[in-house]
Protein backbone atom coordinates (compact mmCIF):
# COMPACT_ATOMS: atom_id res chain seq x y z
CA UNK A 1 0.00 0.00 0.00
CA UNK A 2 1.37 3.40 -0.90
CA UNK A 3 1.56 6.00 1.83
CA UNK A 4 -1.41 8.31 1.60
CA UNK A 5 0.56 11.50 1.02
CA UNK A 6 -0.25 14.51 -1.14
CA UNK A 7 3.35 15.56 -1.78
CA UNK A 8 4.78 18.83 -3.00
CA UNK A 9 7.91 18.34 -5.07
CA UNK A 10 10.40 20.01 -2.76
CA UNK A 11 12.56 22.73 -4.37
CA UNK A 12 13.14 25.26 -1.62
CA UNK A 13 12.96 25.12 2.14
CA UNK A 14 10.48 23.11 4.14
CA UNK A 15 9.21 24.47 7.44
CA UNK A 16 10.77 22.40 10.18
CA UNK A 17 7.70 21.63 12.25
CA UNK A 18 5.51 18.96 10.75
CA UNK A 19 1.92 19.52 11.77
CA UNK A 20 0.71 16.40 13.45
CA UNK A 21 -2.80 15.31 14.17
CA UNK A 22 -3.66 16.13 17.78
CA UNK A 23 -4.10 13.15 20.03
CA UNK A 24 -4.36 12.61 23.76
CA UNK A 25 -1.45 11.00 25.56
CA UNK A 26 -2.16 7.68 27.25
CA UNK A 27 -2.30 9.00 30.81
CA UNK A 28 -3.95 5.82 32.05
CA UNK A 29 -0.62 4.05 31.60
CA UNK A 30 1.95 6.86 31.71
CA UNK A 31 0.53 8.46 34.88
CA UNK A 32 -0.60 5.15 36.39
CA UNK A 33 -4.25 6.15 36.76
CA UNK A 34 -5.11 2.48 37.28
CA UNK A 35 -3.07 -0.42 38.60
CA UNK A 36 -0.67 -1.59 35.94
CA UNK A 37 -0.30 -5.35 36.38
CA UNK A 38 2.54 -6.56 34.21
CA UNK A 39 4.00 -9.99 33.53
CA UNK A 40 0.46 -11.30 33.15
CA UNK A 41 1.02 -13.92 30.47
CA UNK A 42 -1.96 -16.25 30.75
CA UNK A 43 -4.26 -17.53 33.44
CA UNK A 44 -2.88 -15.27 36.12
CA UNK A 45 -4.81 -15.56 39.36
CA UNK A 46 -6.25 -12.58 41.22
CA UNK A 47 -7.49 -13.46 44.69
CA UNK A 48 -10.11 -11.61 46.72
CA UNK A 49 -10.77 -12.33 50.37
CA UNK A 50 -13.68 -11.63 52.68
CA UNK A 51 -14.30 -12.22 56.37
CA UNK A 52 -17.22 -11.82 58.73
CA UNK A 53 -16.97 -11.68 62.54
CA UNK A 54 -19.61 -12.15 65.23
CA UNK A 55 -19.14 -11.29 68.87
CA UNK A 56 -20.68 -13.96 71.09
CA UNK A 57 -21.16 -14.62 74.77
CA UNK A 58 -18.21 -16.13 76.61
CA UNK A 59 -18.47 -19.76 77.48
CA UNK A 60 -16.08 -21.86 79.53
CA UNK A 61 -17.19 -24.90 77.59
CA UNK A 62 -16.99 -25.64 73.89
CA UNK A 63 -17.76 -22.42 71.92
CA UNK A 64 -19.80 -22.54 68.72
CA UNK A 65 -18.09 -21.30 65.61
CA UNK A 66 -19.52 -18.19 64.00
CA UNK A 67 -18.45 -15.74 61.37
CA UNK A 68 -17.08 -16.35 57.87
CA UNK A 69 -13.72 -16.63 56.22
CA UNK A 70 -13.82 -16.60 52.46
CA UNK A 71 -11.69 -16.17 49.39
CA UNK A 72 -12.06 -16.68 45.70
CA UNK A 73 -9.75 -16.68 42.73
CA UNK A 74 -10.30 -15.01 39.39
CA UNK A 75 -8.27 -16.11 36.41
CA UNK A 76 -7.24 -13.38 34.00
CA UNK A 77 -5.80 -14.15 30.57
CA UNK A 78 -4.99 -11.05 28.52
CA UNK A 79 -5.98 -11.00 24.87
CA UNK A 80 -3.11 -10.88 22.41
CA UNK A 81 -3.69 -8.11 19.90
CA UNK A 82 -1.83 -6.56 17.02
CA UNK A 83 -1.57 -3.41 14.92
CA UNK A 84 -0.15 -4.03 11.47
CA UNK A 85 0.19 -1.83 8.42
CA UNK A 86 2.05 -2.17 5.14
CA UNK A 87 3.36 0.75 3.13
CA UNK A 88 5.53 1.56 0.15
CA UNK A 89 8.21 4.11 1.11
CA UNK A 90 8.91 4.97 -2.52
CA UNK A 91 6.55 7.96 -2.38
CA UNK A 92 8.91 9.60 0.15
CA UNK A 93 11.41 10.06 -2.68
CA UNK A 94 9.36 13.02 -4.00
CA UNK A 95 8.60 14.66 -0.68
CA UNK A 96 10.23 16.80 2.00
CA UNK A 97 11.39 13.56 3.55
CA UNK A 98 13.84 12.97 0.69
CA UNK A 99 16.19 15.48 2.31
CA UNK A 100 17.49 12.89 4.72
CA UNK A 101 17.32 9.86 2.48
CA UNK A 102 20.87 8.58 2.30
CA UNK A 103 22.53 8.42 -1.14
CA UNK A 104 21.84 5.31 -3.19
CA UNK A 105 18.60 4.00 -4.62
CA UNK A 106 18.78 1.22 -2.05
CA UNK A 107 18.03 3.62 0.76
CA UNK A 108 14.29 4.12 0.88
CA UNK A 109 13.36 5.18 4.39
CA UNK A 110 13.71 8.72 5.69
CA UNK A 111 14.81 9.05 9.30
CA UNK A 112 12.62 12.14 9.63
CA UNK A 113 9.59 10.17 8.42
CA UNK A 114 10.47 7.34 10.77
CA UNK A 115 10.85 9.73 13.70
CA UNK A 116 7.82 11.94 13.11
CA UNK A 117 5.23 9.71 11.50
CA UNK A 118 6.04 6.15 12.57
CA UNK A 119 7.83 6.58 15.88
CA UNK A 120 5.85 9.70 16.69
CA UNK A 121 2.31 10.01 15.49
CA UNK A 122 1.56 6.40 14.54
CA UNK A 123 2.86 4.89 17.76
CA UNK A 124 1.15 7.53 19.88
CA UNK A 125 -2.06 6.84 18.01
CA UNK A 126 -1.77 3.16 18.92
CA UNK A 127 -1.15 4.10 22.53
CA UNK A 128 -4.22 6.36 22.56
CA UNK A 129 -6.32 3.67 20.90
CA UNK A 130 -5.22 1.12 23.50
CA UNK A 131 -6.17 3.49 26.30
CA UNK A 132 -9.56 4.20 24.78
CA UNK A 133 -10.34 0.50 24.31
CA UNK A 134 -9.09 -0.35 27.80
CA UNK A 135 -11.90 1.81 29.18
CA UNK A 136 -14.52 1.46 26.52
CA UNK A 137 -14.75 -1.86 24.71
CA UNK A 138 -16.97 -4.95 24.74
CA UNK A 139 -16.87 -8.44 23.33
CA UNK A 140 -19.78 -9.23 21.01
CA UNK A 141 -20.77 -12.06 23.38
CA UNK A 142 -20.89 -9.69 26.34
CA UNK A 143 -23.07 -7.26 24.40
CA UNK A 144 -25.51 -10.09 23.66
CA UNK A 145 -25.47 -11.29 27.28
CA UNK A 146 -26.15 -7.81 28.68
CA UNK A 147 -28.93 -7.21 26.12
CA UNK A 148 -30.62 -10.36 27.45
CA UNK A 149 -30.65 -9.12 31.08
CA UNK A 150 -33.89 -7.66 32.39
CA UNK A 151 -33.42 -4.03 33.38
CA UNK A 152 -34.64 -2.86 36.77
CA UNK A 153 -34.12 -0.16 39.36
CA UNK A 154 -32.67 -2.23 42.24
CA UNK A 155 -28.94 -2.55 42.75
CA UNK A 156 -29.18 -6.24 41.83
CA UNK A 157 -30.58 -5.52 38.38
CA UNK A 158 -28.84 -4.10 35.37
CA UNK A 159 -29.81 -0.46 34.85
CA UNK A 160 -31.60 0.47 31.65
CA UNK A 161 -28.88 3.06 31.13
CA UNK A 162 -26.18 0.42 31.63
CA UNK A 163 -27.86 -1.79 29.02
CA UNK A 164 -28.04 1.17 26.66
CA UNK A 165 -24.37 1.94 27.20
CA UNK A 166 -23.25 -1.62 26.41
CA UNK A 167 -25.50 -1.60 23.34
CA UNK A 168 -23.71 1.59 22.23
CA UNK A 169 -20.24 0.18 22.86
CA UNK A 170 -18.48 -0.92 19.70
CA UNK A 171 -17.74 -4.65 19.70
CA UNK A 172 -14.05 -5.38 20.12
CA UNK A 173 -11.54 -8.02 21.14
CA UNK A 174 -11.91 -7.82 24.94
CA UNK A 175 -14.13 -6.29 27.61
CA UNK A 176 -13.02 -2.84 28.76
CA UNK A 177 -13.29 -1.52 32.32
CA UNK A 178 -16.76 0.02 31.93
CA UNK A 179 -18.18 -3.18 30.46
CA UNK A 180 -16.45 -5.23 33.17
CA UNK A 181 -18.05 -3.08 35.85
CA UNK A 182 -21.45 -3.98 34.38
CA UNK A 183 -20.88 -7.64 33.48
CA UNK A 184 -18.10 -10.04 34.47
CA UNK A 185 -17.25 -13.40 35.99
CA UNK A 186 -15.03 -12.01 38.76
CA UNK A 187 -17.04 -13.66 41.49
CA UNK A 188 -16.79 -16.63 43.82
CA UNK A 189 -18.34 -19.05 41.32
CA UNK A 190 -16.64 -17.58 38.24
CA UNK A 191 -20.09 -17.36 36.67
CA UNK A 192 -20.61 -14.56 34.16
CA UNK A 193 -23.26 -12.17 35.41
CA UNK A 194 -24.09 -8.69 36.57
CA UNK A 195 -21.15 -6.85 38.12
CA UNK A 196 -21.19 -5.90 41.78
CA UNK A 197 -20.72 -2.16 41.15
CA UNK A 198 -22.70 0.45 43.07
CA UNK A 199 -25.18 1.55 40.44
CA UNK A 200 -26.14 5.20 39.97
CA UNK A 201 -28.80 6.12 37.44
CA UNK A 202 -27.77 9.25 35.57
CA UNK A 203 -28.85 11.55 32.83
CA UNK A 204 -27.33 13.82 30.18
CA UNK A 205 -24.64 15.87 31.96
CA UNK A 206 -24.33 19.56 31.15
CA UNK A 207 -22.50 22.48 32.76
CA UNK A 208 -25.78 23.30 34.56
CA UNK A 209 -26.41 19.95 36.24
CA UNK A 210 -22.84 18.68 36.58
CA UNK A 211 -22.62 19.38 40.31
CA UNK A 212 -25.95 17.68 41.02
CA UNK A 213 -24.85 14.61 39.06
CA UNK A 214 -21.46 14.45 40.79
CA UNK A 215 -23.34 14.71 44.10
CA UNK A 216 -25.12 11.47 43.18
CA UNK A 217 -21.78 9.77 42.55
CA UNK A 218 -20.25 11.13 45.75
CA UNK A 219 -23.23 10.05 47.83
CA UNK A 220 -23.05 6.54 46.40
CA UNK A 221 -19.39 5.97 47.31
CA UNK A 222 -19.29 3.52 50.24
CA UNK A 223 -18.13 5.55 53.25
CA UNK A 224 -15.32 3.12 54.00
CA UNK A 225 -13.70 3.99 50.64
CA UNK A 226 -13.36 7.59 51.84
CA UNK A 227 -12.06 6.64 55.29
CA UNK A 228 -9.03 8.54 56.51
CA UNK A 229 -5.77 6.70 56.20
CA UNK A 230 -6.91 4.52 53.33
CA UNK A 231 -6.01 4.89 49.69
CA UNK A 232 -7.85 7.87 48.23
CA UNK A 233 -10.23 7.00 45.40
CA UNK A 234 -10.38 8.81 42.07
CA UNK A 235 -13.36 10.02 40.13
CA UNK A 236 -12.80 8.93 36.53
CA UNK A 237 -14.69 11.22 34.16
CA UNK A 238 -14.93 11.88 30.42
CA UNK A 239 -12.46 14.48 29.17
CA UNK A 240 -15.26 16.86 28.24
CA UNK A 241 -16.07 17.28 31.94
CA UNK A 242 -13.00 19.48 32.36
CA UNK A 243 -14.74 22.06 30.17
CA UNK A 244 -18.11 21.58 31.83
CA UNK A 245 -16.55 22.05 35.28
CA UNK A 246 -14.74 25.22 34.21
CA UNK A 247 -17.97 26.61 32.75
CA UNK A 248 -19.80 25.69 35.98
CA UNK A 249 -17.14 27.44 38.06
CA UNK A 250 -17.21 30.52 35.83
CA UNK A 251 -20.85 31.09 36.73
CA UNK A 252 -20.76 33.54 39.62
CA UNK A 253 -23.98 32.10 41.02
CA UNK A 254 -22.45 28.67 41.58
CA UNK A 255 -20.83 27.37 44.75
CA UNK A 256 -17.14 27.26 43.87
CA UNK A 257 -15.85 24.90 46.53
CA UNK A 258 -17.62 21.85 45.11
CA UNK A 259 -15.23 21.60 42.19
CA UNK A 260 -11.85 22.91 43.32
CA UNK A 261 -9.17 23.43 40.72
CA UNK A 262 -5.50 24.26 41.26
CA UNK A 263 -4.13 27.51 39.85
CA UNK A 264 -2.54 25.83 36.87
CA UNK A 265 -5.85 24.12 36.09
CA UNK A 266 -4.07 20.78 35.99
CA UNK A 267 -5.76 19.17 38.98
CA UNK A 268 -9.49 18.99 39.49
CA UNK A 269 -11.26 17.82 42.63
CA UNK A 270 -14.84 17.20 43.68
CA UNK A 271 -15.35 17.35 47.45
CA UNK A 272 -11.64 16.62 47.79
CA UNK A 273 -11.63 13.59 45.48
CA UNK A 274 -9.32 14.06 42.53
CA UNK A 275 -10.96 13.80 39.13
CA UNK A 276 -9.01 11.99 36.43
CA UNK A 277 -10.09 12.69 32.88
CA UNK A 278 -9.93 9.54 30.78
CA UNK A 279 -11.46 8.35 27.51
CA UNK A 280 -14.71 7.01 28.91
CA UNK A 281 -18.06 7.65 27.23
CA UNK A 282 -19.99 10.85 27.78
CA UNK A 283 -22.48 10.74 30.67
CA UNK A 284 -20.49 8.01 32.43
CA UNK A 285 -18.53 8.44 35.69
CA UNK A 286 -16.60 5.91 37.74
CA UNK A 287 -15.52 6.41 41.35
CA UNK A 288 -13.03 3.82 42.57
CA UNK A 289 -9.68 3.31 44.16
CA UNK A 290 -7.07 2.78 41.49
CA UNK A 291 -6.07 -0.46 43.21
CA UNK A 292 -9.48 -1.87 42.16
CA UNK A 293 -8.96 -1.28 38.44
CA UNK A 294 -6.31 -3.32 36.66
CA UNK A 295 -4.62 -2.87 33.31
CA UNK A 296 -3.20 -6.37 32.78
CA UNK A 297 -0.51 -6.87 30.20
CA UNK A 298 2.63 -8.84 29.59
CA UNK A 299 5.02 -5.91 29.35
CA UNK A 300 3.84 -2.28 29.59
CA UNK A 301 6.43 -1.02 27.11
CA UNK A 302 4.93 -3.32 24.44
CA UNK A 303 2.40 -0.53 23.86
CA UNK A 304 5.15 1.64 22.37
CA UNK A 305 7.25 -1.03 20.70
CA UNK A 306 7.10 -0.94 16.93
CA UNK A 307 8.76 -3.27 14.49
CA UNK A 308 9.46 -1.83 11.06
CA UNK A 309 11.01 -3.89 8.30
CA UNK A 310 10.79 -5.01 4.69
CA UNK A 311 7.90 -7.40 4.09
CA UNK A 312 10.32 -9.82 2.42
CA UNK A 313 13.93 -9.70 1.35
CA UNK A 314 12.96 -9.61 -2.33
CA UNK A 315 10.47 -6.75 -1.84
CA UNK A 316 10.85 -3.01 -1.30
CA UNK A 317 7.56 -2.35 0.51
CA UNK A 318 7.57 -2.40 4.29
CA UNK A 319 5.47 -3.13 7.32
CA UNK A 320 4.97 -1.63 10.78
CA UNK A 321 3.84 -4.01 13.48
CA UNK A 322 2.96 -3.75 17.14
CA UNK A 323 2.13 -6.78 19.32
CA UNK A 324 0.81 -6.62 22.83
CA UNK A 325 -1.51 -8.29 25.32
CA UNK A 326 -4.26 -6.55 27.24
CA UNK A 327 -7.03 -7.28 29.71
CA UNK A 328 -9.11 -5.10 31.99
CA UNK A 329 -9.95 -6.45 35.41
CA UNK A 330 -12.08 -5.05 38.24
CA UNK A 331 -11.56 -6.08 41.85
CA UNK A 332 -13.48 -5.34 45.06
CA UNK A 333 -16.54 -4.68 42.94
CA UNK A 334 -18.89 -3.67 45.73
CA UNK A 335 -16.79 -0.56 46.43
CA UNK A 336 -16.77 0.88 42.92
CA UNK A 337 -19.40 3.35 41.79
CA UNK A 338 -20.64 3.41 38.20
CA UNK A 339 -22.80 6.32 37.06
CA UNK A 340 -24.43 5.94 33.65
CA UNK A 341 -26.75 8.46 32.04
Amino acid at each position, binding site marked *: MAISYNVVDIRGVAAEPIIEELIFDNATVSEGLVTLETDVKAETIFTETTAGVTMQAYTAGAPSSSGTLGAFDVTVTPTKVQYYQEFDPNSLRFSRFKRDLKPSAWNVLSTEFERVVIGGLYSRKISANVESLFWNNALAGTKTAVAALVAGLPQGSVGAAEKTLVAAT*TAGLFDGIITKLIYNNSNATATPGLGGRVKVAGTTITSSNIKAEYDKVYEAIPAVVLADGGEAPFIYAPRSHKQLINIFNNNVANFKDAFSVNDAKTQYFFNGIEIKFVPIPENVIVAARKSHLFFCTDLASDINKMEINKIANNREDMFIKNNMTIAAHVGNQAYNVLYVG
Partner: protein
Amino acid sequence: MALKIKEGSKIVAYGASNESFTSSSKLTQDVLVHLQTRFPNDVVSDAPEKPLLKQEKQKVK
Protein backbone atom coordinates in the same frame (compact mmCIF):
# COMPACT_ATOMS: atom_id res chain seq x y z
CA MET B 1 -46.83 0.73 24.33
CA ALA B 2 -43.90 -0.23 22.10
CA LEU B 3 -41.35 2.40 21.27
CA LYS B 4 -39.08 2.95 18.31
CA ILE B 5 -36.52 5.47 17.14
CA LYS B 6 -38.03 7.94 14.72
CA GLU B 7 -37.08 7.53 11.06
CA GLY B 8 -34.19 9.86 10.25
CA SER B 9 -33.16 10.38 13.89
CA LYS B 10 -29.62 9.66 15.00
CA ILE B 11 -29.09 9.36 18.74
CA VAL B 12 -25.56 9.89 20.06
CA ALA B 13 -26.04 8.97 23.71
CA TYR B 14 -22.45 8.42 24.82
CA GLY B 15 -20.26 10.53 22.54
CA ALA B 16 -18.69 10.09 19.16
CA SER B 17 -16.50 7.14 20.16
CA ASN B 18 -19.56 5.00 20.79
CA GLU B 19 -22.12 3.73 18.33
CA SER B 20 -25.07 5.97 17.59
CA PHE B 21 -28.61 4.62 17.42
CA THR B 22 -30.95 4.93 14.45
CA SER B 23 -34.32 3.44 13.50
CA SER B 24 -32.50 0.35 12.23
CA SER B 25 -30.69 -0.32 15.56
CA LYS B 26 -31.93 -3.50 17.21
CA LEU B 27 -32.72 -2.35 20.74
CA THR B 28 -34.81 -3.86 23.49
CA GLN B 29 -37.82 -1.95 24.79
CA ASP B 30 -36.16 -1.21 28.16
CA VAL B 31 -33.30 0.46 26.31
CA LEU B 32 -35.77 2.47 24.23
CA VAL B 33 -37.65 3.51 27.36
CA HIS B 34 -34.37 4.82 28.77
CA LEU B 35 -33.45 6.59 25.55
CA GLN B 36 -36.87 8.25 25.53
CA THR B 37 -36.06 9.88 28.89
CA ARG B 38 -33.00 11.51 27.35
CA PHE B 39 -34.17 12.00 23.77
CA PRO B 40 -37.96 12.41 23.96
CA ASN B 41 -38.22 13.84 20.46
CA ASP B 42 -36.33 10.98 18.84
CA VAL B 43 -38.03 7.99 20.48
CA VAL B 44 -41.72 7.62 19.64
CA SER B 45 -44.52 5.08 19.91
CA ASP B 46 -44.55 2.60 17.05
CA ALA B 47 -48.36 2.26 17.19
CA PRO B 48 -49.85 3.13 13.80
CA GLU B 49 -51.45 6.54 13.74
CA LYS B 50 -55.21 6.34 14.23
CA PRO B 51 -57.23 7.51 11.24
CA LEU B 52 -59.14 10.69 12.01
CA LEU B 53 -62.77 10.29 12.98
CA LYS B 54 -65.40 11.83 10.70
CA GLN B 55 -66.08 14.70 13.14
CA GLU B 56 -62.35 15.38 13.53
CA LYS B 57 -61.95 15.47 9.76
CA GLN B 58 -64.69 18.06 9.58
CA LYS B 59 -62.93 20.10 12.28
CA VAL B 60 -59.71 19.95 10.31
CA LYS B 61 -61.57 21.30 7.26
